[in-house]
């Protein structure tokens, strides 16, 4: 049994991290996906996660979105525990209502977009605000149209996803996630399923978010150039651990660990 008293009920202090993984462990049977992960992400920080497949990088995002449970450790968002909740001065595993309350701070975009196929682009964006936040339809429509404008999709707002290209669907998916006003945005290989010629339209939207909005972002990507351009920090994952992390110029320019060097040169050769 894990000693939960080592984890604070709340992370206080100024500035406190927007996201904090404390000794988070995830295993499927004997396969350890993440091994005692410690990771803090500051408010407004853009962190890119890179690494070979199977290194656990996508799992980091999926745990934060509560799509995966964790085996031990605690994840905090904006200082409050996400995976756990306080009860009688102790942390116990979160129940559904706690998850729903804390999950509101987090938004996510997926590799395969996962737009709702039976709704138009605009309806996809309005769905969360209207159904989950209980926002009046007119207000949700205004906000969604604003966001579709931001991602350059206002002209296609009445189209169903099946009529949109991958890049267009992904931009709608970004608008849909933003419509919930998350504090933390997660991008899980959002360009991996796209044709090369439309990757730019999605990365440009993310660039715009980075430069114009004070969102905290975690991004799993295979695009090293993009990660280098826009990240405040890059984490290289290997075997369920952060092997090396640092500012992009440092990690890409002068990697210290051998595994990082090997990975980066292998990726370079592939290009």
């Amino acid at each position, binding site marked *: 049994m894990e000693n939960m008293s080592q984890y604070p009920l709340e992370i206080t202090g100024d500035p406190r991290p927007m996201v904090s993984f404390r000794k988070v462990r995830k295993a499927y049977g004997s396969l350890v996906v993440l091994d005692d992960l410690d990771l803090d992400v500051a408010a407004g920080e853009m962190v890119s996660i890179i690494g070979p497949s199977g290194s656990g990088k996508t799992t980091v995002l999926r745990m934060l979105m509560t799509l995966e449970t964790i085996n031990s450790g605690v994840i905090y968002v904006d200082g409050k525990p996400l995976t756990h909740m306080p009860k009688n001065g102790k942390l116990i595993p979160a129940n559904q209502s706690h998850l729903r309350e804390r999950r509101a701070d987090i938004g996510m975009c997926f590799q395969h977009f996962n737009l709702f196929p039976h709704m138009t682009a605009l309806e996809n964006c309005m*769905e969360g605000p209207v159904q989950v936040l209980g926002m009046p339809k007119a207000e949700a429509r205004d906000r969604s149209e604003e966001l579709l404008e931001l991602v350059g999709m206002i002209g296609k707002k009445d189209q169903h996803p099946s009529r949109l290209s991958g890049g267009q669907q992904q931009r709608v998916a970004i608008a849909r996630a933003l419509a919930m006003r998350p504090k933390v945005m997660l991008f899980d290989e959002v360009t991996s399923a796209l044709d090369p010629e439309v990757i730019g339209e999605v990365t440009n939207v993310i660039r715009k978010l980075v430069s114009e909005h004070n969102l905290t972002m975690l991004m799993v990507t295979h695009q090293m150039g993009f990660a280098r351009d826009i990240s405040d920090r890059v984490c290289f994952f290997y075997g369920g651990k952060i092997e090396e992390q640092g500012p992009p110029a440092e990690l890409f320019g002068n990697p210290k660990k051998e595994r990082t060097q090997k990975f980066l040169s292998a990726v370079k050769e592939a290009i």
Partner: protein
Amino acid sequence: MVDWRWDFVWEILPRLLQATGNTLIAAIAGYGIALVLGLFLALGQRTPYRIVTLIIREVVEFIRSTPLILQIFFIFYVGPQFGIRLSPWMSGMIAIGLHYACYLSEVYRGGIESVPRGQWEAATALNMSTLQKYRRVIIPQAIPSALAGMGNYLVGIFKDTPMLSVIGVAELIHTANAIGSENYRFLEPYTMVGLIFLAISLPTAGLIRAFEGYVRRKLGM
């Protein structure tokens, strides 16, 4: 030489048409019960409570593995021993509804399982409740792929209504039997019953297909 008498056909037609009405009422009411109950049976098999899932699955399996006619007899003849006294009509519709609810629950289950996992995850990422996920995201997408199966069972129920004749519901076969034994002529009533079934089943199947296409277009799929 076949001895076919048109005057007899015209004579019995009103009675047969009235029985057609009864048959349709039984089919539609049974189908209504099956549609609603089937959904609960399907969703009940997806709760996090293992024991509920297990019980429902076994009940569904049991009902699907035993003949409808036995279930009709059971409800009508054995029910009173347990203090459940139902008219032939009620017994029949409950039996048909229950029987087909089990088949429909499998259709719904298949439809729900055909919705990709990414849709559930996107709904979670939007922080939807379980009810919202089903109502807004999953069921609307499950319906188009379930429609074909749902339509087949509508026709199936319709064709199974003659089983209600065994407990005296005045549907088509029951009426045709009565006409036949009153007049010692079976050719015309049975032929007419066959034609009536055909005249209703065929267009229904076509309508269902058209409706399926319409729903898919409407949902942009």
